[in-house]
């Protein structure tokens, strides 16, 4: 079933507990982010894109897995937007769309050997509850 | 005079019959609507609706009160007792009260009162609170049109009224 933008926005809000409309575009999240350089879409852009409903692009992109979940942006956002949670919500959405994570815990050792650069978040996702 | 031991015959049935009778015998039924308006915002809003010639049904009769917080739940029940079909309460927008906090109290009181009326089975929508500023003549008119339409749809109030007041 294809969800419309509004429904997706609702789901993201529900998962993240965060309201992207509160963003006043100060950029402090991006100024704070240690993984800034790793991301195609920087935290502030990410939030704006969610607010504008450009979720498809985000779902396809690796940005969602580049967030370290360090929560510096959550801590410092003056508007309580909690960008890391927004990213996490989109990631969950992506996982749901795939019917769960691509990885299972058993595959983790092999993956690390194969790709030393693999983001830790991707590995963590192997243990998530959406895993089949 | 009949012996009236069980004092309380089902009021609804009786009133409904009464109303049905009234409907066929008399002219078309029109709702009776009491509107309480605060002096500073909503009454002025109603004035503006008037000077802008923004019409709404004549069923609405306005009572001027200094502030929406002056409206005692007793007044609302009194209106129903006397056969009102709808009661609407208008005040300044929250935060804009002339007396700074009056409408905040109104909001709490009416939230509880309306919830109670609903709880005893009175049709939802017979009571309403609207915030109308002095500048919102058009809104005042729109609100009243909508309220009258809603009450007309609900029909005559037979659940809370004193039968003795029915003609």
């Amino acid at each position: 079933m294809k969800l419309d933008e509004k429904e997706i926005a609702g789901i993201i809000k529900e998962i993240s507990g965060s309201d992207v409309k509160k963003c006043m575009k100060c950029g402090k999240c991006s100024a704070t982010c240690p993984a800034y350089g790793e991301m195609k879409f920087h935290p502030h852009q990410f939030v704006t894109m969610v607010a504008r409903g450009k979720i498809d692009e985000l779902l396809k992109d690796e940005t969602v897995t580049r967030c370290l979940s360090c929560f510096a942006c959550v801590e410092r956002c003056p508007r309580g937007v909690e960008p890391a949670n927004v990213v996490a919500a989109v990631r969950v959405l992506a996982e749901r769309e795939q019917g769960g994570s691509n990885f299972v815990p058993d595959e983790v050792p092999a993956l690390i050997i194969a790709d030393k650069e693999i983001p830790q978040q991707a590995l963590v996702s192997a243990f998530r509850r959406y895993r089949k | 005079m009949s012996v009236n031991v069980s004092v309380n015959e089902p009021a609804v049935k009786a009133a409904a019959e009464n109303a049905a009778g009234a409907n066929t015998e008399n002219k078309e039924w029109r709702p009776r609507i009491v509107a309480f308006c605060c002096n500073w915002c909503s009454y002025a809003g109603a004035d503006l609706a008037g000077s802008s010639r923004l019409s709404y049904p004549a069923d609405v009769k306005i009572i001027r009160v200094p502030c929406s917080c002056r409206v005692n739940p007793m007044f609302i029940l009194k209106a129903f007792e006397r056969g009102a079909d709808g009661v609407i309460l208008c005040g300044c927008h929250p935060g804009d009260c002339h007396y700074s906090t009056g409408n905040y109290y109104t909001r709490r009181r009416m939230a509880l009162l309306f919830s109670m009326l609903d709880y005893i089975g009175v049709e939802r929508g017979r009571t309403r609170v609207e915030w109308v500023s002095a500048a919102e003549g058009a809104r005042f008119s729109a609100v009243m049109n909508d309220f009258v339409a809603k009450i007309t749809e609900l029909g005559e109030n037979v659940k809370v009224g004193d039968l003795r007041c029915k003609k």
Partner: protein
Amino acid sequence: MQRLGVFVCWCGSNIAATVDVDRVVAEAKVQPGVVFAQDYQYMCSEAGQNIIKDAIKQYGLNGIVVCSCSPRMHEATFRKAAEAAGLNPYMVEIANIREHCSWIHKDKEAGTEKACVLMRAAVAKVLLNTPLKAGESKVVKRALVIGGGIAGIQTALDIADAGFPVDIVEKNATIGGRMAQLDKTFPTLDCSSCILTPKMVEAKTNENIRLITYAEVEEVSGFVGSFKAKIRKKARFVKEDVCTGCGVCMSKCPSKKGLNEFNMGLNNRPAIYIPFAQAIPNVAVIDKTQCIKLNTGKCGLCEKVCTAGAIDYTQQDEFIEEEYGAIVMATGFRPIDASKFDEYSYSTCKDVVTSLELERIMNAAGPTGGVLLRPSDGKHPHSIVFVQCVGSRDVSGRGKPYCSKICCMYTAKHAMLIRDKYPDVEVHVFYIDVRTPGKNFDEFYRRAAEQYDVDYIKGQVGKVWEEDGHLVVRGVDLIANEQIVLNTDMVVLATAIEPDPTARKVANMLTASIDTNDFITEAHPKLRPVESPTAGIFLSGVCQGPKDIPETVSQAGAAASKVIGLLSKNKLTTNPCVAHSDELLCNGCSCCEKVCPYGAISYDTHLINDHGVKETRRVALVNEALCQGCGACTVVCPSGAMDLKGFSNKQIMAEVEAICL
């Protein structure tokens, strides 16, 4: 026995076109109590008013209903007419058959019927009206200004100029407030003390002004026209009338560890000190936490060197009690504590300073003598980063949800001044939005960017840290869409401003309402911006909301004019439609007191004789001078003891009944 008259106005064709006035008159004539009814083309005209006056006299009317336009239009007119004919003006009720009837209904039948109902409701109400008399209360011709910053000074000067005595109560040892700490002012860049000092001196010398410094208001009672205040004058340990302000004591004082408040704690001052050179009064004060003599009993050096003999270690707090007709709150602001934002390393890096600290660093009387030096090592900085909106527009709980309003402009000022004086210093400003509404404001900001080459970066700073003797700033440039890391020598934080912490206490004392940010609420945000909802309490300066100096000064003048208007009156007429408590019914439960926005309800315990049953009980009393007649108290009163004159329970219920008939 009521003898009522009903007067139906045609308002030309405004009413008569859709309301059959004859029928309204005929219907009026059969209403209980009505002995006279008449219509006329223009009731508000002189001829119309004469009809009313004549009828009142001829028929001995003791109440009238005028069916006409909105009472907001002509109620006063008809009340005056009634009064001229000897009828109490509050025995007049208006049935609004124009705005609420003829103008909105096209069907004449419906309009006429409704007009009759509105007339009937007004008759039902006026039957229960009682003559009301507007009360009078005295006006004490003296004003109190709480706070001696530019807002308080300006208000006091304007009131004093009008010839009324005024007291300024200032909690610090000198007046001058925050403005005295500023170096230059935007957008003209004139020297702050150059424009403030003359006003301070004027406040000192004006014979209508009494300065009560180093003092706080402890208690306020009373109401508009006659407040009573108790003021605590804290012990200075220096006789104010003897000290010459020579400053010898300061140089001799061995205890020099006290932080210099005036310089935002950037340097130290002695235990005995004069806050700054231009302080008014120019009198020393002893900081009792720092003074060796007061703490150990030894030393006493200042007493020895004071040739005037002004030192008095035994001084105690004194109390001043005074009556005032009006009170102005001018309690001002302070910057919020920047150490809450640990990402900016304010508490760990000396070279991260707040804007107000920078003001002191830039000021000739400041810790560096006006030379721009890094606080950590006293070296000349080559690069400075300004961070805007530190704690402003912040709903995370660490800051304030509002815009502090002045930061964009003073940051532009700082940037410009630095670039002007030290062209070698690179200046970066991280901003979210630059807000510059105001005369010559945007031009000023653009000058900083264009003429002085200040680097404005749209984006925020995420972290500041120290590395190899300099600061590293990581921020983002949202336009370039890149994260940037800058090495810099100083970081200046434009911290949000908040109401002075004393504001809440003072507001509570004055029953002035206060918002969630501790700013004082104005009586009306647009139409009564310098008055508090509590009569006789006025607002000046930042205690009402963030503002810059010109706004503060103009608001101070406005507050003063309101005070002058009040003090010019010999008596105050009070609104007679006020709450009234029936002591026989009153339970003394205090619910009414708690919802009263004006503090108009108090309690008294006295002997009450209820038809022979005597009992001493606590009952509510309404101060008619304070009550504004909103009626909030009447509804929380379960026993119905509290009622509102002019809009009594019975009157409103009578209207309801008449409408539902």
